[in-house]
């Protein structure tokens, strides 16, 4: 009998923990699922959480009389963790809106949950254009930037400068593939040629063998279709093996945090495309100053996007008078965005937040006059120039 009780107790102990967490009734719950410790942790990570909190505080802490709560968790670049946590928060914690991603693969998985659970999902940091294409949902908003804009910005600038033959080193998952595609399209459209490509797993630290292949191809441009620490590691290795002497590196996605860790010495002259820069105007500088006071670093485009997206959502809730997902999405898709992040942004039918993009060049050490003075604007692209005038035809939302 004792054995019975004991065994049953053990099992019950375990099962007890499956008790549902308190579902939030009188709260507006915003979730943040992002990479807090891995490859993309510097681009968004803890800083993004801070930015979201700043937005909530600036908004006043409550909306429609309810307290605003921010949940956050690290998805560790694993789609299963991201999807599971999102589903759990939707089922158990009364989640009203999700911010996040950074990793395109994880974001695609989360977008699917957003559609199933009808929770608005503002994808920030993930680049994959398929989030508003083949993987689009009625509840996804793709903020900050996407691979199409990056291709149209950086690839275009480099091809027009004479970089006609390209070899890609690509992060082997949705983001890398889509970024390579976007850039390749621009290259061939401008009379260039893609000589070859090689795929490196996400998180690779030793790029020597991939770069050797790049060198062997004889291409003029080394297209780095990766981001975060993948990008900085591959660039450093390219320098180490003398490849930057014979090939021009193309930073298809780089954040100011990457440039900071690479130092201007290594990164100078690189072209990159960004949706936001801290030193653009008085408003951006004001936000950056407040952020710097808390984090001791200048904010990246993603972190600024978190701030802006949170405010836009809360404003939508206030305007619509509820957290009903369909009403919110309708409101978001019909309101112009004019804030610190962008002056003429709008959410397209396929969910993409179309806004001004900037092609930047990294300054030389001599040109940089103060800390974090890293970029000079080469070209200002309107939203339409960056992402086209029409929504992505492969998005099923448009096929009515």
């Amino acid at each position, binding site marked *: 009998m004792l*054995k019975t009780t004991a065994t049953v107790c053990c099992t019950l102990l375990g099962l007890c923990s499956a008790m549902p967490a308190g579902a939030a009734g009188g709260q507006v719950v915003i979730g943040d699922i992002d990479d807090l410790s891995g490859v993309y942790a510097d681009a968004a990570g803890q800083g993004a959480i801070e930015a979201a909190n700043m937005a909530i505080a600036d908004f006043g802490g409550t909306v429609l009389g309810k307290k605003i709560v921010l949940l956050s968790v690290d998805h560790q670049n694993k789609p299963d963790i991201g999807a599971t946590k999102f589903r759990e928060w939707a089922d158990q914690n009364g989640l009203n809106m999700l911010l996040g991603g950074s990793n395109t693969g994880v974001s695609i998985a989360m977008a699917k949950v957003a559609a199933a659970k009808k929770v608005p999902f503002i994808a920030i940091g993930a680049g994959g254009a398929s989030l508003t294409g083949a993987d689009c949902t009625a509840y996804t908003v793709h903020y900050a930037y996407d691979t199409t804009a990056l291709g149209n910005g950086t690839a275009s600038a480099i091809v027009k400068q004479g970089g006609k033959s390209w070899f890609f080193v690509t992060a082997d*998952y949705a983001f890398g593939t889509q970024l390579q595609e976007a850039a390749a399209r621009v290259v061939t459209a401008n009379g260039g040629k893609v000589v070859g490509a090689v795929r490196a797993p996400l998180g690779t630290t030793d790029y020597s063998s991939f770069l050797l292949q790049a060198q062997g191809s004889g291409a003029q441009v080394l297209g780095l279709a990766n981001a975060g620490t993948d990008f900085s590691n591959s660039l450093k290795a390219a320098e180490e093996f003398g490849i930057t002497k014979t090939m021009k590196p193309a930073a298809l996605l780089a954040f100011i945090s990457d440039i900071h860790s690479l130092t201007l010495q290594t990164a100078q002259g690189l072209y990159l495309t960004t949706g936001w820069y801290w030193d653009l105007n008085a408003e951006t500088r004001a936000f950056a100053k407040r952020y710097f006071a808390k984090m001791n670093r200048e904010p990246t485009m993603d972190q600024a996007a978190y701030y802006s997206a949170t405010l836009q959502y809360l404003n939508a809730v206030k305007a619509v008078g509820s957290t009903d997902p369909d009403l919110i999405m309708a409101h978001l898709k019909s309101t112009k965005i004019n804030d610190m992040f962008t002056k003429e942004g709008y959410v397209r039918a396929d969910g993409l937040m179309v806004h001004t993009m900037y092609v930047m060049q990294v300054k030389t050490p001599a040109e940089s006059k103060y800390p974090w003075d890293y970029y000079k604007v080469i070209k200002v692209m309107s939203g339409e120039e960056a992402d086209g005038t029409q929504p992505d035809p492969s998005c099923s939302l448009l096929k009515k």
Partner: protein
Amino acid sequence: MRAKTAVYALLLLLGIAAPWLGLYPVFLMKVLCFALFACAYNLLLGYTKMLSFGHAAYFGSSAYATGWLVSVHGWGSIPGILAGVAVATLLGLVIGAIAVRRQGIYFAMITLALSQLVYFVCLQAQFTGGENGLQGIPRGSVFGLVSLGPDRTMYYFVLAVFIAAYALILRIVHSPFGQVLKAIRANEPRAVSLGYKADRYKLLAFVLSASLAGLAGALKALVLGFVTLSDVSQATSGEVILMTLLGGSGTFLGPVVGADIVVTLQEYLSDLVGAWVSVIIGAIFVVCVMIFRRGFVGEIERRFSAPRRP
């Protein structure tokens, strides 16, 4: 005997009542899938003392097969699950055939390396989606009759499959085949001298274990709706070993308890301590190996089955 029946009856009752008690069905299903995985693993570790260090290969490959067939090719759920089990069985046969030739440490090393091979194949193969994994796998229905979409219905389906598989394991262990395995475990040279082809029995046990692990994987694919590389990873292989060890290898309920505890810990702890979860899991491993070798159920059984004679 009566105590045992009482335990099972109670657990069955709990199992059936669980969704009505307000417990989160998706979490429960996850526990059941891993409990099945651990029971399958225990068949090998507990009853034949073969430490397979790469069992995630069968769990994950079956999950991928089922997920792919169901989501991309529109297969029904049941045929999908059966296909997944078939894949796991085949893989178990191939790897087992290579591995059972050796024993102990060498066996473990071989299963480890070969499962890593499976991991890399899954990473490269187009259909698995590599780092992205397979997403949005529909739950489907039972032969088109009962939709498995609603969490509760799916839960009962998974519970039924789990009970059936568990009963199968009980049957296997108590069968003549199971007796031969016990003999081989106790003294292999002797069993061989008695005319039993030990390698064949061991291989069969291995394949059975792989099949059931595959069943667990196929179920998991449908329950959670996605399959990723972590399902074929070293980490998952390690987890199932921990579950079996923690619960008590060589007992029947041990793996279930172990799976319950480990899955719960991971759920809870990942919210609280994030990356430190693996530290705690590792620490539990160390504690189990050093002083808690029989695991929860093992210790309980020992304590309460001690002979009452003075």
